[in-house]
């Protein structure tokens, strides 16, 4: 019987614990709903950066609250499919990375951003055309947008550039690295002294994908661009000879390398500076510089759209407008984070402002504007994230020693099994 008492106690304890939690939760929820006329917008985001706009937005718009929920890229689409399927619990606004966004844009779950009460056309001339294209569906309707503009860039160490290239001037560095052969030559020289040329071969892969001629799928047929097939050899050389750090992007070592003296550059758009170099730089403040590569491209970005059937259309648009299209808020954001943004007017203003301390006083925004002024082909398809993952895995297989044709064959096989409706030749 003693055992019995103990058991009852354990169960009572567990009950008390849960009811405590339940109570605490319901208490916090009832606090939220106490004032009836407050609309709470639910936003699903890939990261926490969007939270920066929330306090300013809530202050300017009493009566609207914004609740941001962070969900990683990989989980976002499955979670969305689940809520869209049941029609319950769909967020008012949701966000996805550039290579996943086309699937959602084409699936028709985002509202047409130029149908009242939305009116993105009023801003069209002030938005970088290339960025607008990414969130535009195949019928020409704009459904998603990002606050970032993301031209390709090389973020490099000035001291290492001087040592191996004889200069740290951005324009000269760009011209010394303007072909694959030149890059590999420099990488070879750096390796002899124990310096890795680039943070990860994936940096270069992204640049090649963004600057290729053909999108992954044309008329329902898989197309592997020549540039990517050629890149396989370059990637193999980089991986096999250790010209990169040998870890995936976003691994802890990959970030920690900002502070080491054994890495020359990250080849990433401005967000690479904003998320990687700037926050990690401490003793390397002032030792960094940015240049734009000779071939311009745009890569990545977090695209946000409004759920087609949201009950809070007006409020959602207000928030959308505040994040993307509000000059002051955007300028403030860019100034603090070091990011480059979607509105041309803000970019012009940024180009006039002071330089970055981490970059030794350099202001790269003029260069970015020039890069953004190029014509960009629209390369997005609904298949991009999966096909890129599969192709990178084929590159890794090739670098690990299997035959090039076999690696490509493996890639095609993966595509066939994942997307039986695609024509693969």
């Amino acid at each position, binding site marked *: 019987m003693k*055992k*019995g008492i*103990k*058991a*009852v106690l*354990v*169960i009572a304890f*567990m*009950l008390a*614990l*849960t009811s405590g*939690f*339940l109570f*605490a*939760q319901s208490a916090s929820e009832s606090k939220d709903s106490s004032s009836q006329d407050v609309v709470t917008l639910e936003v*699903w985001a890939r*990261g*926490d950066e969007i939270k920066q706009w929330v306090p300013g937005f809530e202050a300017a718009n009493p009566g609207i609250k914004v609740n941001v*929920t*962070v*969900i*990683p*890229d*990989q*989980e976002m689409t*499955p*979670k*969305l499919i*689940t*809520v869209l*399927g*049941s029609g*319950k*619990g769909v967020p008012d606004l949701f966000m996805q990375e550039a290579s996943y966004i086309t699937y959602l844009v084409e699936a028709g779950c985002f509202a047409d951003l130029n149908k009242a009460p939305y009116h993105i056309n009023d801003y069209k001339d002030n938005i970088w055309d290339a960025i607008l294209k990414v969130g535009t569906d195949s019928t020409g309707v704009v459904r998603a947008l990002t606050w970032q503009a993301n031209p390709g860039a090389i973020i490099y160490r000035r001291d290492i550039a001087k040592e191996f290239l004889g200069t740290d001037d951005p324009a000269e560095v760009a011209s010394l690295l303007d072909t694959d052969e030149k890059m590999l030559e420099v990488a070879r020289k750096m390796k002899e002294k124990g310096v890795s040329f680039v943070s990860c071969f994936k940096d270069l892969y992204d640049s090649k994908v963004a600057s290729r001629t053909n999108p992954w799928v044309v008329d329902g047929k898989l197309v592997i661009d020549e540039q990517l097939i050629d890149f396989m050899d370059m990637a193999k050389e980089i991986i096999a000879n250790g010209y990169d750090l040998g870890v995936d992007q*976003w*691994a*802890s*070592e*990959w*970030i*920690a390398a900002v*502070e080491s003296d054994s890495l020359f550059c990250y080849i990433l758009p401005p967000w690479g500076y904003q998320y990687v170099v700037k926050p*990690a730089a401490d003793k390397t403040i002032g030792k960094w510089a940015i240049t734009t590569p000779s071939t311009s491209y745009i890569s990545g970005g977090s695209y946000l759209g409004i759920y087609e059937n949201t009950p809070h259309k007006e409020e959602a648009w207000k928030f959308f407008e505040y994040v993307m299209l509000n000059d002051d808020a955007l300028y403030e954001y860019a100034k603090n984070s070091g990011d480059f943004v979607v509105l041309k007017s803000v970019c012009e203003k940024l180009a006039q402002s002071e330089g970055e301390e981490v970059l030794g006083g350099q202001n790269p925004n003029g260069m970015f504007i020039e890069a953004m002024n190029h014509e960009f082909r629209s390369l997005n398809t609904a298949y991009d994230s999966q096909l890129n993952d599969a192709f990178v895995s084929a590159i890794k297989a090739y670098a690990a020693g299997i035959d090039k044709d076999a690696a490509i064959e493996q890639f095609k096989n993966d595509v066939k099994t994942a997307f039986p409706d695609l024509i693969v030749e």
Partner: protein
Amino acid sequence: MEKVLKVLIYAFLILLLVICILPFYLVIVNSTYSSIDIVTRIKFVPGDRFLENYGKLQELTNIWRGFANSLLIAVPYVLLTGYFGAFAGYGFAKYRFKGRGFFFCIVLASMMLPSQLSIIGFYKLNLKLGLLNTYWPFIIPGIANASAVFFLKGMIEQTVPTSLIEAARMEGYSELGIFNRIVLPCVMPGVATMCIFNFVSCWNNYLAPLIVLSDAKKFTMPILISTIRGIFLANYGAMYVAIAISVVPVIVVYLFLSKYIINGLTIGAVK
């Protein structure tokens, strides 16, 4: 010779002990250093960055909410498991109805079903019933926990004399009353063992919540943990804190309840 052997045996046992504990120890230590420190040098003594890492973690996710959510599922689940385990166990133990053997075979067979393979059907069923993004699909199955039925049936057969039940019946107790007032108190220790044991497996449930829950506020601990890497990317310090929070309470509870858990374990094997 015997002595040397004994020393070797102890050395072996202790080595295994270290292998089992070391990863947890490293989690706790690493959770107190910055990401950069972690990839610079191995540490065995805790540092002072725990609160900072914890702050960073709380900024992006609410780990305690995941903790509470897991409790909200696991506690009702185990209570149902304990009660209905005894309920069905009593039915099998004390009544001689037609098809009893057949139904008991169903109980045994349900232990062997590879449930992960029916996730697609499970998902669609819940979609149809409107149970997606709720906790019901994880709580209700507590009623049909075969191991609890099996264990408590045996216990009722052994500890509750049929004469006691008959006496109660004479006194005018209803059948349900007999179960609630006489049988259940008798097998309470067994019910508790089943509750505690099944608590662990329910707490660790991963795949089903992964597909059913879409609202991040409802994520259970395991789901939260698996999304952490995507959210934090390279902030190892914060990730270690998250893992530590998911690990340490379990270890603490285990310190007190290991007997129950190990007892609960052995029932499946001893037939």
